[in-house]
Protein backbone atom coordinates (compact mmCIF):
# COMPACT_ATOMS: atom_id res chain seq x y z
CA UNK A 1 0.00 0.00 0.00
CA UNK A 2 2.83 2.39 0.72
CA UNK A 3 5.18 1.00 -1.88
CA UNK A 4 4.85 3.81 -4.39
CA UNK A 5 8.24 5.50 -3.95
CA UNK A 6 10.10 2.39 -2.89
CA UNK A 7 10.22 -0.13 -5.68
CA UNK A 8 13.38 -0.23 -7.81
CA UNK A 9 13.14 2.11 -10.75
CA UNK A 10 10.64 4.34 -8.98
CA UNK A 11 10.97 8.01 -8.13
CA UNK A 12 14.04 9.40 -6.37
CA UNK A 13 14.37 10.02 -2.65
CA UNK A 14 15.77 13.38 -1.69
CA UNK A 15 17.79 14.01 1.41
CA UNK A 16 20.18 16.58 2.80
CA UNK A 17 23.76 16.01 1.71
CA UNK A 18 25.82 16.64 4.87
CA UNK A 19 28.84 15.68 2.81
CA UNK A 20 28.16 15.94 -0.90
CA UNK A 21 29.39 13.43 -3.44
CA UNK A 22 28.34 10.80 -5.94
CA UNK A 23 28.42 7.03 -5.44
CA UNK A 24 26.70 3.93 -6.68
CA UNK A 25 26.53 0.43 -5.29
CA UNK A 26 24.62 -2.33 -3.56
CA UNK A 27 22.56 -1.11 -0.61
CA UNK A 28 23.40 -2.61 2.77
CA UNK A 29 20.38 -1.80 4.94
CA UNK A 30 19.64 -2.20 8.62
CA UNK A 31 17.09 -0.55 10.87
CA UNK A 32 19.57 -0.92 13.75
CA UNK A 33 22.19 1.75 14.66
CA UNK A 34 25.85 0.71 14.48
CA UNK A 35 28.97 1.69 16.41
CA UNK A 36 32.01 1.52 14.15
CA UNK A 37 34.32 1.06 17.14
CA UNK A 38 33.77 -2.56 18.01
CA UNK A 39 31.40 -2.83 15.09
CA UNK A 40 33.41 -2.31 11.90
CA UNK A 41 36.78 -3.79 11.04
CA UNK A 42 38.75 -1.03 9.29
CA UNK A 43 41.22 -3.60 7.97
CA UNK A 44 38.61 -5.62 6.08
CA UNK A 45 35.41 -3.58 5.97
CA UNK A 46 33.55 -6.35 7.79
CA UNK A 47 30.81 -5.63 10.33
CA UNK A 48 32.03 -7.30 13.51
CA UNK A 49 29.41 -6.34 16.11
CA UNK A 50 28.09 -9.83 16.82
CA UNK A 51 24.85 -8.44 18.17
CA UNK A 52 24.12 -6.46 14.99
CA UNK A 53 21.86 -7.85 12.24
CA UNK A 54 24.57 -7.08 9.65
CA UNK A 55 27.28 -9.01 11.54
CA UNK A 56 29.58 -10.81 9.11
CA UNK A 57 28.55 -8.71 6.10
CA UNK A 58 30.97 -6.38 4.37
CA UNK A 59 30.37 -2.65 4.29
CA UNK A 60 33.27 -1.87 1.95
CA UNK A 61 32.06 -0.23 -1.26
CA UNK A 62 28.41 -0.51 -0.23
CA UNK A 63 25.79 2.18 0.07
CA UNK A 64 25.38 1.75 3.81
CA UNK A 65 21.92 2.58 5.10
CA UNK A 66 21.77 2.67 8.89
CA UNK A 67 19.49 4.93 10.94
CA UNK A 68 22.42 6.34 12.94
CA UNK A 69 25.67 5.51 14.68
CA UNK A 70 25.60 4.71 18.36
CA UNK A 71 27.88 4.24 21.32
CA UNK A 72 31.55 5.02 21.23
CA UNK A 73 32.97 8.38 20.22
CA UNK A 74 35.76 6.47 18.47
CA UNK A 75 33.43 5.58 15.60
CA UNK A 76 34.80 8.54 13.67
CA UNK A 77 38.41 7.41 14.06
CA UNK A 78 37.61 3.87 12.88
CA UNK A 79 35.77 5.22 9.85
CA UNK A 80 38.67 7.56 9.02
CA UNK A 81 41.02 4.56 9.08
CA UNK A 82 38.67 2.66 6.79
CA UNK A 83 38.46 5.55 4.33
CA UNK A 84 42.27 5.79 4.25
CA UNK A 85 42.57 2.05 3.59
CA UNK A 86 39.77 1.93 1.03
CA UNK A 87 37.60 -0.38 3.14
CA UNK A 88 34.87 2.16 3.92
CA UNK A 89 31.34 2.15 2.52
CA UNK A 90 30.91 4.10 -0.74
CA UNK A 91 28.19 6.28 0.82
CA UNK A 92 26.05 6.62 3.94
CA UNK A 93 22.32 7.10 4.05
CA UNK A 94 20.87 7.78 7.50
CA UNK A 95 17.54 8.58 9.16
CA UNK A 96 18.13 12.21 10.07
CA UNK A 97 21.61 13.76 10.25
CA UNK A 98 24.42 11.70 11.78
CA UNK A 99 27.24 13.99 12.81
CA UNK A 100 29.77 11.22 13.49
CA UNK A 101 29.66 9.92 9.92
CA UNK A 102 29.75 13.47 8.56
CA UNK A 103 32.80 14.35 10.66
CA UNK A 104 34.83 11.35 9.52
CA UNK A 105 34.03 12.19 5.90
CA UNK A 106 34.89 15.87 6.38
CA UNK A 107 38.27 15.04 7.96
CA UNK A 108 38.99 12.46 5.27
CA UNK A 109 38.34 15.08 2.60
CA UNK A 110 40.92 17.35 4.31
CA UNK A 111 43.53 14.65 4.83
CA UNK A 112 43.09 12.33 1.85
CA UNK A 113 41.00 14.27 -0.66
CA UNK A 114 38.35 11.60 -0.67
CA UNK A 115 35.19 11.14 1.32
CA UNK A 116 32.07 9.00 1.11
CA UNK A 117 28.94 11.14 0.67
CA UNK A 118 26.73 11.31 3.77
CA UNK A 119 23.05 11.97 3.14
CA UNK A 120 20.36 12.46 5.80
CA UNK A 121 16.93 11.20 4.77
CA UNK A 122 13.49 11.58 6.31
CA UNK A 123 12.26 8.61 8.35
CA UNK A 124 9.87 7.58 5.56
CA UNK A 125 12.50 7.75 2.83
CA UNK A 126 15.00 5.90 4.99
CA UNK A 127 12.54 3.07 5.56
CA UNK A 128 11.95 2.86 1.80
CA UNK A 129 15.62 1.87 1.33
CA UNK A 130 14.78 -1.51 2.83
CA UNK A 131 13.37 -2.50 -0.55
CA UNK A 132 16.04 -0.97 -2.78
CA UNK A 133 18.84 -3.43 -3.59
CA UNK A 134 21.04 -1.00 -5.47
CA UNK A 135 21.21 2.78 -5.46
CA UNK A 136 22.95 5.80 -6.88
CA UNK A 137 23.65 8.76 -4.62
CA UNK A 138 24.01 12.15 -6.30
CA UNK A 139 25.85 15.23 -5.05
CA UNK A 140 22.54 17.02 -4.58
CA UNK A 141 21.43 14.47 -1.99
CA UNK A 142 19.13 12.67 -4.38
CA UNK A 143 19.05 8.87 -4.11
CA UNK A 144 17.95 6.85 -7.14
CA UNK A 145 17.09 3.16 -7.13
CA UNK A 146 19.08 1.36 -9.84
Amino acid at each position, binding site marked *: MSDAPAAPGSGPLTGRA*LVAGAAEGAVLYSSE*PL*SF*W*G*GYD*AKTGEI*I*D*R*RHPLAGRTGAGRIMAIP*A*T*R*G*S*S*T*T*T*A*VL*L*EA*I*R*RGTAPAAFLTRG*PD*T*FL*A*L*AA*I*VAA*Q*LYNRAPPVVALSAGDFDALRRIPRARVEATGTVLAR
Partner: protein
Amino acid sequence: MRGKDGEGARLAMSILARMADVVGARELLDITSAHIDSSLYQGPATLEFAERLADGGARVQVPTTLNVSGVDEHGWREWDVSESWVTPARRQMEAYEAMGCEPTWTCAPYQTQPRPGVGEQVAWGESSAIVFANSVLGARTERYPDLLDICCAVTGRAPAAGLHLTGNRAGQVLVDLSGVPRRLAEEPALYPVLGHWIGLRVEGRIPVLDGLRARPGEDDLKALGAAMASSGAVGLFHWVGLTPEAPDLDAAFQGREPATRMCPGPAALRAARDELGSGLSDSAGLDLVVLGSPHFSLSEFAALARLVDGRRRHPGVRLLITTGRAVRELAARAGHLDAIESFGGELTVDTCILTTPMLPESIRRLMTNSAKYAWYTPGLLERAVAFGSLADCVESAVAGRVTRDDGAWTAEP
Protein backbone atom coordinates in the same frame (compact mmCIF):
# COMPACT_ATOMS: atom_id res chain seq x y z
CA MET B 1 51.33 33.07 18.52
CA ARG B 2 51.75 30.07 16.25
CA GLY B 3 49.15 28.19 18.32
CA LYS B 4 46.36 30.48 17.25
CA ASP B 5 47.28 31.21 13.66
CA GLY B 6 49.29 28.31 12.28
CA GLU B 7 48.33 25.59 9.81
CA GLY B 8 47.17 23.28 12.61
CA ALA B 9 44.79 25.82 14.08
CA ARG B 10 43.48 26.62 10.60
CA LEU B 11 42.74 22.93 9.98
CA ALA B 12 40.94 22.68 13.33
CA MET B 13 38.86 25.77 12.63
CA SER B 14 37.91 24.67 9.14
CA ILE B 15 36.68 21.28 10.44
CA LEU B 16 34.81 23.00 13.26
CA ALA B 17 33.16 25.46 10.88
CA ARG B 18 32.03 22.65 8.56
CA MET B 19 30.60 20.74 11.53
CA ALA B 20 28.80 23.84 12.82
CA ASP B 21 27.09 23.95 9.45
CA VAL B 22 26.24 20.23 9.61
CA VAL B 23 24.60 20.56 13.03
CA GLY B 24 22.86 23.79 12.08
CA ALA B 25 24.62 25.98 14.66
CA ARG B 26 24.25 29.67 14.03
CA GLU B 27 27.30 30.51 16.11
CA LEU B 28 30.20 29.11 18.06
CA LEU B 29 30.38 29.42 21.83
CA ASP B 30 33.38 29.63 24.18
CA ILE B 31 34.34 26.53 26.13
CA THR B 32 36.17 26.39 29.46
CA SER B 33 37.76 22.94 29.17
CA ALA B 34 38.06 19.89 26.95
CA HIS B 35 38.58 16.16 27.33
CA ILE B 36 40.15 14.44 24.35
CA ASP B 37 39.38 10.94 23.13
CA SER B 38 41.17 11.46 19.80
CA SER B 39 44.44 10.49 21.44
CA LEU B 40 43.44 6.84 21.09
CA TYR B 41 45.56 5.21 18.40
CA GLN B 42 43.40 3.41 15.83
CA GLY B 43 45.88 3.20 12.99
CA PRO B 44 47.92 5.41 10.63
CA ALA B 45 45.04 7.80 9.91
CA THR B 46 44.55 8.88 13.53
CA LEU B 47 48.31 9.35 13.86
CA GLU B 48 48.50 11.39 10.63
CA PHE B 49 45.62 13.57 11.83
CA ALA B 50 47.31 14.18 15.20
CA GLU B 51 50.65 15.03 13.61
CA ARG B 52 49.04 17.32 11.01
CA LEU B 53 47.67 19.35 13.90
CA ALA B 54 50.72 19.18 16.17
CA ASP B 55 53.29 19.76 13.42
CA GLY B 56 51.11 22.62 12.19
CA GLY B 57 51.66 24.31 15.54
CA ALA B 58 48.19 23.73 16.98
CA ARG B 59 47.99 24.36 20.75
CA VAL B 60 44.99 23.91 23.01
CA GLN B 61 43.41 27.18 24.16
CA VAL B 62 41.67 25.77 27.28
CA PRO B 63 42.68 23.29 30.03
CA THR B 64 42.51 19.93 28.31
CA THR B 65 42.70 16.39 29.71
CA LEU B 66 43.51 13.24 27.76
CA ASN B 67 41.49 10.04 27.62
CA VAL B 68 42.98 6.55 27.82
CA SER B 69 46.14 6.05 25.83
CA GLY B 70 46.86 3.34 23.31
CA VAL B 71 49.56 1.90 25.55
CA ASP B 72 50.51 1.57 29.22
CA GLU B 73 53.88 3.31 28.82
CA HIS B 74 55.48 1.51 31.73
CA GLY B 75 53.68 -1.82 32.00
CA TRP B 76 53.01 -2.91 28.40
CA ARG B 77 55.82 -5.47 28.36
CA GLU B 78 54.00 -7.52 31.00
CA TRP B 79 51.26 -8.21 28.46
CA ASP B 80 51.05 -9.23 24.84
CA VAL B 81 51.49 -5.81 23.23
CA SER B 82 53.59 -5.77 20.05
CA GLU B 83 56.33 -3.21 19.28
CA SER B 84 54.61 -2.43 16.00
CA TRP B 85 51.63 -1.15 17.98
CA VAL B 86 53.59 0.61 20.72
CA THR B 87 55.71 2.79 18.44
CA PRO B 88 52.93 4.60 16.55
CA ALA B 89 50.61 4.61 19.60
CA ARG B 90 53.32 6.42 21.57
CA ARG B 91 53.94 8.87 18.74
CA GLN B 92 50.25 9.71 18.78
CA MET B 93 50.34 10.26 22.56
CA GLU B 94 53.31 12.60 22.11
CA ALA B 95 51.49 14.61 19.45
CA TYR B 96 48.63 15.36 21.85
CA GLU B 97 51.03 16.22 24.66
CA ALA B 98 52.84 18.56 22.26
CA MET B 99 49.55 20.38 21.70
CA GLY B 100 49.48 21.18 25.41
CA CYS B 101 47.05 18.52 26.64
CA GLU B 102 47.61 17.18 30.17
CA PRO B 103 48.77 13.55 30.20
CA THR B 104 45.95 12.38 32.46
CA TRP B 105 45.31 9.23 30.38
CA THR B 106 41.98 8.25 31.83
CA CYS B 107 38.42 7.78 30.61
CA ALA B 108 37.22 9.02 34.02
CA PRO B 109 38.97 12.40 34.40
CA TYR B 110 36.26 13.52 36.83
CA GLN B 111 37.69 11.08 39.40
CA THR B 112 40.88 13.05 39.95
CA GLN B 113 40.82 16.29 37.92
CA PRO B 114 39.05 19.59 38.61
CA ARG B 115 35.41 19.21 37.57
CA PRO B 116 33.42 21.62 35.43
CA GLY B 117 30.55 23.21 37.31
CA VAL B 118 26.81 23.18 36.62
CA GLY B 119 26.02 24.95 33.38
CA GLU B 120 29.66 25.26 32.32
CA GLN B 121 30.20 24.87 28.55
CA VAL B 122 32.86 22.25 27.77
CA ALA B 123 33.82 19.96 24.89
CA TRP B 124 34.33 16.40 26.02
CA GLY B 125 34.99 13.22 24.11
CA GLU B 126 34.70 9.62 25.37
CA SER B 127 31.10 8.46 25.53
CA SER B 128 31.14 7.45 29.19
CA ALA B 129 32.78 10.72 30.28
CA ILE B 130 30.36 12.80 28.19
CA VAL B 131 27.30 11.28 29.82
CA PHE B 132 28.87 11.73 33.28
CA ALA B 133 29.75 15.38 32.63
CA ASN B 134 26.28 16.23 31.35
CA SER B 135 24.20 14.18 33.74
CA VAL B 136 26.06 13.99 37.05
CA LEU B 137 28.07 17.22 36.91
CA GLY B 138 25.49 19.28 35.03
CA ALA B 139 28.16 20.63 32.69
CA ARG B 140 27.21 21.04 29.04
CA THR B 141 28.87 19.14 26.27
CA GLU B 142 27.67 17.73 23.01
CA ARG B 143 28.67 14.09 22.29
CA TYR B 144 32.05 15.01 20.80
CA PRO B 145 33.52 12.28 18.67
CA ASP B 146 37.21 11.60 18.08
CA LEU B 147 38.75 14.15 15.66
CA LEU B 148 36.33 16.92 16.71
CA ASP B 149 37.07 17.19 20.44
CA ILE B 150 40.63 18.34 19.69
CA CYS B 151 39.38 20.88 17.14
CA CYS B 152 37.27 22.43 19.91
CA ALA B 153 40.23 22.45 22.32
CA VAL B 154 42.55 24.05 19.76
CA THR B 155 40.05 26.79 18.90
CA GLY B 156 38.51 27.11 22.38
CA ARG B 157 35.12 27.03 20.67
CA ALA B 158 32.23 24.69 20.01
CA PRO B 159 29.13 24.86 17.81
CA ALA B 160 26.20 26.31 19.77
CA ALA B 161 23.95 23.31 19.27
CA GLY B 162 22.77 20.04 20.77
CA LEU B 163 23.31 19.51 24.48
CA HIS B 164 25.01 22.91 24.86
CA LEU B 165 21.55 24.51 24.68
CA THR B 166 19.02 24.41 27.53
CA GLY B 167 16.07 23.54 25.31
CA ASN B 168 17.79 20.40 24.03
CA ARG B 169 18.41 19.07 27.54
CA ALA B 170 14.80 18.28 28.44
CA GLY B 171 13.99 14.68 29.32
CA GLN B 172 12.19 12.69 26.63
CA VAL B 173 11.57 9.23 28.09
CA LEU B 174 10.39 8.48 31.63
CA VAL B 175 11.94 5.33 33.09
CA ASP B 176 9.78 4.39 36.07
CA LEU B 177 11.80 2.22 38.46
CA SER B 178 9.12 1.69 41.09
CA GLY B 179 8.78 -1.92 39.92
CA VAL B 180 12.39 -2.80 40.83
CA PRO B 181 12.37 -4.93 44.01
CA ARG B 182 14.17 -3.44 47.00
CA ARG B 183 16.81 -6.16 47.10
CA LEU B 184 17.68 -5.59 43.44
CA ALA B 185 17.66 -1.82 43.99
CA GLU B 186 20.44 -2.33 46.55
CA GLU B 187 22.55 -4.49 44.20
CA PRO B 188 25.38 -2.44 42.63
CA ALA B 189 25.27 -4.55 39.44
CA LEU B 190 21.78 -3.19 38.82
CA TYR B 191 23.27 0.02 37.41
CA PRO B 192 25.29 -1.32 34.47
CA VAL B 193 22.43 -3.69 33.62
CA LEU B 194 19.82 -0.94 33.82
CA GLY B 195 21.98 1.33 31.67
CA HIS B 196 22.33 -1.41 29.08
CA TRP B 197 18.56 -1.98 29.05
CA ILE B 198 17.81 1.73 28.74
CA GLY B 199 20.43 2.44 26.05
CA LEU B 200 19.02 -0.23 23.77
CA ARG B 201 15.56 1.27 24.03
CA VAL B 202 16.06 5.05 24.06
CA GLU B 203 18.89 5.13 21.47
CA GLY B 204 19.74 8.87 21.34
CA ARG B 205 16.89 10.25 23.44
CA ILE B 206 17.21 11.64 26.99
CA PRO B 207 15.93 9.29 29.70
CA VAL B 208 14.65 10.47 33.08
CA LEU B 209 14.92 7.90 35.87
CA ASP B 210 12.60 8.00 38.83
CA GLY B 211 11.12 5.88 41.58
CA LEU B 212 13.98 3.57 42.60
CA ARG B 213 13.93 2.47 46.24
CA ALA B 214 17.62 3.24 46.66
CA ARG B 215 19.94 6.17 46.10
CA PRO B 216 22.80 5.49 43.69
CA GLY B 217 26.32 6.69 44.44
CA GLU B 218 28.81 8.16 42.02
CA ASP B 219 30.30 4.80 40.96
CA ASP B 220 26.76 3.59 40.25
CA LEU B 221 26.01 6.60 38.07
CA LYS B 222 29.32 6.14 36.26
CA ALA B 223 28.43 2.52 35.45
CA LEU B 224 24.86 3.43 34.49
CA GLY B 225 25.91 6.15 32.07
CA ALA B 226 28.73 4.16 30.50
CA ALA B 227 26.33 1.30 29.79
CA MET B 228 23.72 3.62 28.24
CA ALA B 229 26.39 5.23 26.09
CA SER B 230 27.50 1.81 24.80
CA SER B 231 24.23 0.13 23.91
CA GLY B 232 22.66 3.47 22.99
CA ALA B 233 23.84 6.93 22.01
CA VAL B 234 22.89 8.55 25.30
CA GLY B 235 24.77 11.76 26.13
CA LEU B 236 22.56 12.89 29.02
CA PHE B 237 20.18 11.37 31.53
CA HIS B 238 18.36 12.88 34.48
CA TRP B 239 17.67 11.21 37.82
CA VAL B 240 14.82 12.88 39.65
CA GLY B 241 15.90 14.24 43.01
CA LEU B 242 19.55 13.45 42.38
CA THR B 243 21.12 15.01 39.27
CA PRO B 244 21.49 18.79 39.04
CA GLU B 245 18.91 19.50 36.35
CA ALA B 246 16.23 17.27 37.87
CA PRO B 247 15.17 18.59 41.29
CA ASP B 248 11.73 17.22 40.38
CA LEU B 249 9.98 15.50 37.49
CA ASP B 250 8.67 18.72 36.03
CA ALA B 251 12.14 20.28 35.89
CA ALA B 252 13.62 17.14 34.30
CA PHE B 253 11.10 17.37 31.45
CA GLN B 254 11.24 21.21 31.38
CA GLY B 255 7.51 21.32 31.98
CA ARG B 256 6.60 19.00 29.12
CA GLU B 257 4.79 15.69 29.33
CA PRO B 258 6.98 12.59 28.87
CA ALA B 259 6.41 11.33 25.33
CA THR B 260 7.25 7.76 26.31
CA ARG B 261 7.18 5.82 29.58
CA MET B 262 9.08 2.60 30.33
CA CYS B 263 8.77 0.42 33.43
CA PRO B 264 11.52 -2.23 33.58
CA GLY B 265 10.60 -5.01 36.01
CA PRO B 266 12.76 -7.75 37.52
CA ALA B 267 12.25 -10.20 34.63
CA ALA B 268 13.32 -7.65 32.01
CA LEU B 269 16.37 -6.67 34.03
CA ARG B 270 17.39 -10.25 34.60
CA ALA B 271 17.15 -10.85 30.85
CA ALA B 272 19.26 -7.74 30.21
CA ARG B 273 21.87 -9.01 32.65
CA ASP B 274 22.07 -12.33 30.82
CA GLU B 275 22.20 -10.52 27.48
CA LEU B 276 25.42 -8.78 28.55
CA GLY B 277 27.19 -12.11 28.51
CA SER B 278 28.21 -13.78 25.30
CA GLY B 279 29.38 -17.37 24.77
CA LEU B 280 29.94 -18.33 28.44
CA SER B 281 27.41 -20.18 30.55
CA ASP B 282 27.28 -20.24 34.34
CA SER B 283 29.98 -22.49 35.80
CA ALA B 284 32.06 -22.26 32.61
CA GLY B 285 35.85 -22.08 33.07
CA LEU B 286 37.54 -18.66 33.05
CA ASP B 287 40.90 -17.16 32.02
CA LEU B 288 40.56 -13.53 33.10
CA VAL B 289 38.47 -11.39 35.39
CA VAL B 290 38.75 -7.76 34.29
CA LEU B 291 37.48 -4.69 36.16
CA GLY B 292 37.64 -0.99 35.46
CA SER B 293 35.69 0.32 32.48
CA PRO B 294 35.28 3.20 32.99
CA HIS B 295 38.54 3.31 34.93
CA PHE B 296 38.34 1.94 38.48
CA SER B 297 37.78 4.58 41.15
CA LEU B 298 39.34 4.89 44.59
CA SER B 299 36.12 3.69 46.24
CA GLU B 300 35.95 0.72 43.88
CA PHE B 301 39.51 -0.18 44.89
CA ALA B 302 38.40 0.00 48.54
CA ALA B 303 35.44 -2.31 47.86
CA LEU B 304 37.61 -4.76 45.93
CA ALA B 305 40.28 -4.77 48.66
CA ARG B 306 37.62 -5.71 51.22
CA LEU B 307 36.32 -8.56 49.04
CA VAL B 308 39.73 -10.11 48.28
CA ASP B 309 41.33 -9.57 51.68
CA GLY B 310 43.09 -12.73 52.84
CA ARG B 311 42.04 -14.71 49.77
CA ARG B 312 43.87 -15.95 46.71
CA ARG B 313 42.78 -16.24 43.10
CA HIS B 314 42.56 -19.57 41.30
CA PRO B 315 45.90 -20.29 39.58
CA GLY B 316 44.18 -20.54 36.19
CA VAL B 317 42.50 -17.12 36.36
CA ARG B 318 44.21 -13.72 36.15
CA LEU B 319 42.59 -10.67 37.74
CA LEU B 320 43.23 -7.39 35.91
CA ILE B 321 42.15 -3.93 37.03
CA THR B 322 42.34 -1.05 34.58
CA THR B 323 42.65 2.46 35.97
CA GLY B 324 44.41 5.78 35.53
CA ARG B 325 47.84 6.58 36.94
CA ALA B 326 46.41 9.17 39.37
CA VAL B 327 43.88 6.77 40.92
CA ARG B 328 46.53 4.07 41.21
CA GLU B 329 48.64 6.46 43.29
CA LEU B 330 45.67 7.28 45.53
CA ALA B 331 44.80 3.59 45.93
CA ALA B 332 48.40 2.75 46.81
CA ARG B 333 48.55 5.53 49.40
CA ALA B 334 45.24 4.40 50.89
CA GLY B 335 46.68 0.89 51.28
CA HIS B 336 44.14 -0.82 48.99
CA LEU B 337 46.68 -2.39 46.67
CA ASP B 338 48.34 -4.72 49.19
CA ALA B 339 45.31 -7.00 49.58
CA ILE B 340 44.74 -6.94 45.82
CA GLU B 341 48.34 -7.87 45.05
CA SER B 342 48.32 -10.64 47.68
CA PHE B 343 45.19 -11.97 46.02
CA GLY B 344 47.14 -12.14 42.76
CA GLY B 345 45.56 -9.11 41.11
CA GLU B 346 47.40 -7.03 38.48
CA LEU B 347 47.00 -3.42 37.38
CA THR B 348 47.31 -1.80 33.99
CA VAL B 349 47.27 1.97 34.01
CA ASP B 350 46.30 4.62 31.49
CA THR B 351 44.68 2.26 29.01
CA CYS B 352 42.33 -0.72 28.89
CA ILE B 353 41.84 -4.09 27.21
CA LEU B 354 39.69 -2.51 24.49
CA THR B 355 42.18 0.16 23.47
CA THR B 356 45.47 -1.74 23.63
CA PRO B 357 45.80 -5.15 21.96
CA MET B 358 47.25 -6.57 25.18
CA LEU B 359 45.55 -9.90 25.83
CA PRO B 360 47.51 -13.01 24.87
CA GLU B 361 45.77 -15.57 22.63
CA SER B 362 45.59 -17.99 25.56
CA ILE B 363 43.04 -15.73 27.28
CA ARG B 364 39.73 -16.66 25.66
CA ARG B 365 37.15 -16.45 28.49
CA LEU B 366 36.57 -13.19 30.35
CA MET B 367 34.35 -12.09 33.19
CA THR B 368 33.61 -8.50 34.19
CA ASN B 369 31.26 -6.29 36.18
CA SER B 370 31.46 -3.60 33.48
CA ALA B 371 28.65 -3.37 30.94
CA LYS B 372 31.01 -1.52 28.62
CA TYR B 373 33.62 -4.29 28.69
CA ALA B 374 30.89 -6.90 28.29
CA TRP B 375 29.28 -5.05 25.39
CA TYR B 376 32.45 -4.53 23.33
CA THR B 377 34.39 -7.73 24.11
CA PRO B 378 32.78 -10.06 21.55
CA GLY B 379 33.28 -7.69 18.58
CA LEU B 380 36.56 -5.99 19.49
CA LEU B 381 38.37 -8.86 21.16
CA GLU B 382 36.60 -11.88 19.64
CA ARG B 383 36.40 -13.52 23.05
CA ALA B 384 33.67 -14.97 25.23
CA VAL B 385 32.52 -12.90 28.20
CA ALA B 386 30.36 -13.30 31.29
CA PHE B 387 28.82 -10.44 33.24
CA GLY B 388 28.41 -10.42 37.03
CA SER B 389 28.58 -8.18 40.07
CA LEU B 390 31.90 -7.21 41.66
CA ALA B 391 31.32 -9.89 44.31
CA ASP B 392 30.51 -12.45 41.58
CA CYS B 393 33.73 -11.52 39.80
CA VAL B 394 35.81 -12.10 42.95
CA GLU B 395 34.08 -15.41 43.73
CA SER B 396 34.64 -16.52 40.15
CA ALA B 397 38.32 -15.57 40.26
CA VAL B 398 38.68 -17.76 43.35
CA ALA B 399 36.61 -20.64 42.01
CA GLY B 400 38.21 -20.61 38.56
CA ARG B 401 34.82 -20.66 36.88
CA VAL B 402 31.80 -18.39 36.42
CA THR B 403 29.99 -18.17 39.75
CA ARG B 404 27.02 -15.86 40.11
CA ASP B 405 24.67 -15.17 43.00
CA ASP B 406 21.20 -14.91 41.49
CA GLY B 407 19.53 -13.86 44.75
CA ALA B 408 18.97 -10.20 43.93
CA TRP B 409 17.84 -11.00 40.38
CA THR B 410 15.11 -13.41 41.39
CA ALA B 411 13.78 -11.37 44.33
CA GLU B 412 10.09 -10.53 44.48
CA PRO B 413 9.01 -6.88 44.82
